[in-house]
């Protein structure tokens, strides 16, 4: 469980999050949506423990600002929007850093098996020997995801539920990998872990999120089930676009087409 209470974050002199009180449960994929600059990434950085904040953020019942980097590394993995790697590591070396991180880094044997499996999951089996810098942007992003997966490999370890924090994990991916990565995060949640992910694609959000938090100007505009949050009215208020949410009747699947916009 992640609970924020009256969370205020300032970047420089600018106040980015105002009195934010949201929560995310293990066993669920929680999607954070909202327009550019609404504070999504700042929220993710705050719950990751990167930023100073006022108010309270409880991760598995512990105040994040009072938790050490090592313990945090055990409880949650973070996939940033973009990662630059300054030296020519191989894919395998990048992923193994995830496996070794945290206070109880995976033992060598288990580590190498899990690295293989993680690369499989992100569709990069056989890429281990390749140089990270020679990969495309989408492939690099998936290597980073494999690294993060290795860090918090077991969704539940002992008594502790672990978390994946993903900042636009599918933004640079093709549709096949968008679907498989979202499927992967859903599977992680189903096995008892928690997933908090920033999303721009409303249709993928409908398909895979159990809960949606809609942010606007650093405040919560709406939060709840996807179909409760992603509505015509909320989309108009958040994105200032007249979009129409539709439904495939027999499947109970909602969708939003960009084409439905009324200018």
């Amino acid at each position: 469980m992640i609970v924020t209470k009256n969370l205020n974050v300032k970047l420089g002199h600018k106040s980015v999050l105002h009195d934010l009180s949201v929560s995310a449960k293990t066993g669920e994929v929680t999607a954070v949506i909202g327009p550019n600059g609404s504070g999504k990434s700042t929220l993710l950085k705050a719950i990751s423990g990167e930023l100073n904040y006022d108010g309270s953020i409880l991760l598995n019942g512990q105040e994040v600002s009072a938790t050490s980097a090592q313990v945090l590394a055990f409880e949650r993995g973070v996939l940033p929007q973009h990662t630059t790697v300054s030296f020519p590591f191989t894919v395998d070396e990048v992923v193994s850093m995830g496996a070794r991180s945290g206070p109880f880094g995976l033992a060598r044997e288990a580590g190498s098996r899990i690295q293989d499996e993680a690369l499989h999951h992100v569709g990069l089996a056989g890429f281990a020997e390749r140089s990270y810098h020679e990969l495309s942007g989408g492939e690099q992003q998936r290597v980073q995801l494999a690294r993060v997966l290795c860090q918090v490999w077991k969704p539940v370890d002992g008594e502790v539920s672990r978390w994946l924090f993903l900042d636009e994990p599918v933004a640079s991916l093709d549709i096949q990998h968008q679907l498989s990565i979202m499927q992967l995060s859903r599977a992680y949640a189903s096995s008892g872990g928690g997933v908090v992910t920033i999303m721009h694609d409303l249709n993928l959000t409908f398909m895979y999120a159990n809960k949606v938090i809609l942010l606007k100007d650093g405040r919560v505009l709406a939060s709840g089930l996807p179909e409760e949050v992603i509505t015509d009215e909320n989309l108009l208020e958040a994105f200032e676009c007249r979009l129409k949410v539709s439904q495939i009747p027999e499947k109970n699947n909602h969708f939003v087409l960009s084409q439905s916009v009324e200018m």
Partner: protein
Amino acid sequence: MTTASIQNGKLPVKTVHKRRNGGRAGLAKLVITMLVLLYVLVSLVTLGIGAADVSITQMAMDWLFSGNGEAISPRDKLILFEIRLPRLFLGTLIGAALAVSGAVLQSLFRNPLADPGIIGVSAGASLGAVATIVLGGTFLGSFVTVLGVFSLPVMAFFGALMITILLHRIATRDGKTSIVTMLLAGIALQAFVMAITGILIFMADDQQLRDLTFWGLGSLAGATWSKIGASGLIILVSFCTLPLLANALNALSFGEASAFHMGVDVQRIKTIAVCATAAATGAAVAVSGGIGFVGIVVPHLLRLAIGPDNRYLLPASALLGAVLLICADAVARVIVAPAELPIGIITALIGAPFFLWLLLKRRGLLLS
């Protein structure tokens, strides 16, 4: 397309891979082993090289067959134990210190062009050392008395530390270190520090000038056991932090945020790395003056060979740095024998063209 079919397509039956991590890690271990052997070989060969003709093999044979050291002439003994051996030790310590400092700074600044000599850290150390020599008789007097043989390396350490911290403060913003800012700030700081050093030299009396010249040529010629003791202790202590740093420095190459996500206490690691490199560089500069380019050439060559993993890069850098400096020192004392060329000239002759080649190869990187 349903998600179920995607999952079937994407998460297929696990295939067993041959373990590949052996690839570069295995190579790295092999290279380190080779470097150890090379170091031993180079040490033995250079012990026999110099202005006086002392044959190491002959001495070893004499010693073996006579069962004691008496068969060795006192002259050879003196040359070996009081001149060549201290020099070998000093070369090892300084070469290792400079190469490892370069490797650590490069990881810390996330930039393969960082080198203690280029970004002004060595100049800071020089300032500390010159200040000790020139002001040792005046208001630094009591300090020098208290620290004795340690005063030069300790002051050089503070000089190097000051520059490294300033540089990091100036070049890093929001956890990102700007390459251009760092190099430019390094040049500016270096010019400033050298100007102050110049003022101190201007103030120096004749005896101090002699000391300064002797020290500043960049040479291992003044090697004595007491100098090795003081600087060696500082260098070895700073090396003790390396096992702690290696993994964290690897993580830092993904940026400070990602390193933190992986459980690295970034601020603490940065403090340790800055202090350790400043101490090692300071101690090296204090005994040998400015010896450039070892810190950039050695880690770069090794990264090409075994990759950037600091768990292997750091020990390999120490070994290759030592080998390189011992060889350069051997050249320095043979090429114009019985006189000696300052070793800084040799390393610059090799290092400067190499650095230019590196710049040409990485032209694109500098602009970004």
